[in-house]
């Protein structure tokens, strides 16, 4: 092999086996070094943060863990704690029905819970596209069912309301061929006419034949977290279509339509929700025909819907503006009319772009429903500030109650935001 001067003392024939990385670069230590102690400044920050976390947990965890669960008043709590600073969870234990249902008749809690559970059944096909599309039928029926379950009364009123919708739909399908917009107007008119003229007498007549009624519950008996949920869901559901119309109106080439939409949007966005709620509670009665007096809950739902619709409109306008102009032009070049173009080409894409902002608005609206406590509706905050904290048994139990309400909201809002992120990933059709 080796000859003469060209002898080589050693030749390696096979490569060195790979060595394990140094201990300081891999595993837990490596992770700690790169992520927590990469430099002196970082190490100091890590230590400070650890201390802050420790201080916070040391203050909060014993307070939560040592809490008293079994007592009938704040005094009993204090006796049991004997000077230890800890929570009095007994207030939640005793008053949770009030926090969740308000003054809703306890024997009918089952109805409210059923409405709540069915809400998720109704939402499922909207939220997850993998589910059978036939479930959407239930989604369509849900509002009427939920109304009946929560407010009670005869089933025929919601059924007649539903029939009104069907009448409108039939009219729409009959005229759809001629003009989409015209058919919508006609359908709306037909439904309204049915509701105003026929609903009450028909429902009464049918109730005479077959009662089918639940014990009625008045709106003022509904309270607690239930109000926040009712206002939140109905506000979000109703404001979305209204918001779409407003956004289209604002983008429209027709100056008067555009002006009306701009004024409405800017006005509503310019005032705080609390002033609109003042309008609902004290002013709206002035603007209705003398003698009419409708439910405060309904008035608040209307105001919350209008409020959210203005914000929805801005979110959707963002989506419409972000869509390349070529999409609009493609619609025109196919010979589609305005409504076909919007329905088939523009809106599906624009709505997808605006999902994050729409979800943010939905979360914001749900949180803002706590504001109704200021116009003395007894939502969860109103219940805490009113009947519970002013009762002699539970005077001064702030943290536990506010913390409970905070956790309730956190669970729902965080859930919605996680869902929206999942949806965004799912709908992403571009390749990144």
């Amino acid at each position, binding site marked *: 092999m080796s000859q003469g001067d060209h002898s080589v003392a050693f030749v390696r024939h096979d490569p060195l086996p790979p060595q394990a990385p140094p201990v300081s670069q891999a595993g837990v230590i490596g992770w700690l070094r790169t992520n927590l102690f990469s430099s002196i400044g970082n190490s100091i*920050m890590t230590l400070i943060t650890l201390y802050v976390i420790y201080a916070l947990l040391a203050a909060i965890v014993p307070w939560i863990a040592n809490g008293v669960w079994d007592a009938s008043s704040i005094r009993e709590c204090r006796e049991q704690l004997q000077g230890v600073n800890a929570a009095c969870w007994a207030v939640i234990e005793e008053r949770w029905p009030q926090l969740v249902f308000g003054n809703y008749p306890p024997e009918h809690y089952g109805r409210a819970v059923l409405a709540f559970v069915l809400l998720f059944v109704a939402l499922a096909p909207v939220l997850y596209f993998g589910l059978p599309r036939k479930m959407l039928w239930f989604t369509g029926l849900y509002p009427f069912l939920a109304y009946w379950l929560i407010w009670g009364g005869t089933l025929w009123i919601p059924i007649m309301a539903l029939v009104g919708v069907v009448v409108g739909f039939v009219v729409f399908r009959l005229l759809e061929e001629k003009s989409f917009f015209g058919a919508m107007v006609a359908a709306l008119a037909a439904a309204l006419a049915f509701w105003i003229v026929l609903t009450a007498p028909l429902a009464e007549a049918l109730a005479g034949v077959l009662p089918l009624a639940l014990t009625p519950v008045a709106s003022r008996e509904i309270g607690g977290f239930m109000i926040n949920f009712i206002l939140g869901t109905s506000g979000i559901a109703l404001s979305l279509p209204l918001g779409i119309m407003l956004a289209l109106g604002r983008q429209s080439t*027709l100056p008067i*339509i555009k002006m009306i939409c701009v004024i409405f949007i800017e006005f509503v966005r310019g005032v705080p929700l609390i002033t609109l709620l003042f309008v609902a509670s*004290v002013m709206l009665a*002035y603007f209705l025909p003398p003698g009419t007096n409708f439910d405060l809950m309904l008035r608040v739902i209307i105001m919350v819907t209008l409020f959210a619709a203005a914000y929805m409109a801005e979110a959707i306008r963002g989506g419409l503006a972000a869509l390349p102009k070529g999409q609009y032009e493609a619609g025109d070049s196919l010979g589609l009319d305005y409504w076909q173009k919007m329905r088939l080409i523009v809106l599906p894409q624009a709505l997808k772009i605006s999902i994050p902002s729409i979800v943010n608005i939905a979360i914001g609206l749900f949180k803002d429903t706590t*504001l109704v406590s200021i116009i003395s509706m007894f939502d969860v905050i109103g219940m805490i500030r009113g009947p519970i904290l002013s009762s002699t048994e539970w005077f001064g139990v*702030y943290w536990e109650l506010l913390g409970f309400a905070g956790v309730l909201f956190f669970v729902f*809002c965080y859930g919605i935001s996680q869902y929206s992120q999942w949806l965004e990933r799912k709908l992403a059709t571009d390749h990144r």
Partner: protein
Amino acid sequence: MASISDPAQPAFRLSMLVNDTRYRGITFQIIAFLAIVFFFGWLIWNATQNLAALGQDISYKFLGEQAGYDINQQLIPFVSTDTHFRAAMVGILNTLLVAFLGCITATIIGVVVGVLRLSKNWLVAKVMSVYVEIFRNVPVLIWILIIFSVMSNALPSPRDFRGDNATASMVFDAMAFTNRGVYVPGPVWEAGSGIVVAVFLASIVGIFFLRRYATKLLYDTGRELPVLQLSLGLFFVPALIAYFVMGSPIGLDYPELKGFNFQGGLKVQGTLIALWWALALYTGAFIAENVRAGILAVSKGQTEAAAALGLRPGKIMRLVVLPQALRVIIPPLISQYLNLTKNSSLAAAIGYMDITGTLGGITLNQTGRSFEAVLLLMLFYLMISLAISGVMNLYNNAVKLKER
């Protein structure tokens, strides 16, 4: 040669108002306009009918009447014999005060948190995300109530500061956190303090001109001035010299425990602090997200290109990254300011006397003029919003990418 002429225009028929796209838009608009006019006319007609039935009228005379209530937080002097109008003014100033304090604090919190969320330090980044998620997903009203109950229940009462075995003590012997409010040292303006303030303001103007001059010098000759050091010097030195030359005219008045309560110093109401910090922490979480998005929006190529040009890291941040990030950050930032200002109306929940508490609260209940009071309230917020969005549009136009 055959000539092609336009086909003869068909005569105008009434059905063209609906079927012809040239006229349809106009028809729809007129119908919509009439519907709106009719709707508002109906509302106003109802309102006049209702008011007539109740024997009321629309009148703003109540603004000139004696208010008859006290306001515990006032930036301009107010006594209960003053008018409702003055009460509203006090409320407006209180709204602006809490909005101003809240916006500044929220911006600081938001920028710090937003930058730290992008930190390479895993723990810090996670803690900041937890802060953002907790504050964004719980209603601001709950935060206001929680911080208010800290202020009014968890803090010691003034008598705990008294005696030899006091359970509470003042921070730095200067600030007292009590459940009746926070007492901090207040400035005392003596003769000659005006000159110190004037010198200070003049040096700020001076800094502005110095920076312009430094930029011009850099562009014209390529010489760089040590702008930061010069600005800092200009900021402190003249004002301090003036302060000592005039014989220390600005003093501090420390709060002292006298009798049952603290006297002297500056008293900050617990309600103001609760509202201010709740709004700042809540809005700060949103601003943090905007800041993070803004920084992430500047593509990495920009940093690399700047580095390739030979800029140092500080300058890359200041000259390349920040200007582009700000273009993304500022518009949502301003809408967060707007949200904060509107959310300050939640003062009503804890009894901070802002415009909603005075005009929309006590004045409304005392005079029963709900119509007028709510209308004025809306007008006030609308004016603020329009002013802020006007400023935002000006800014947007100024920084807009100049495209072809």
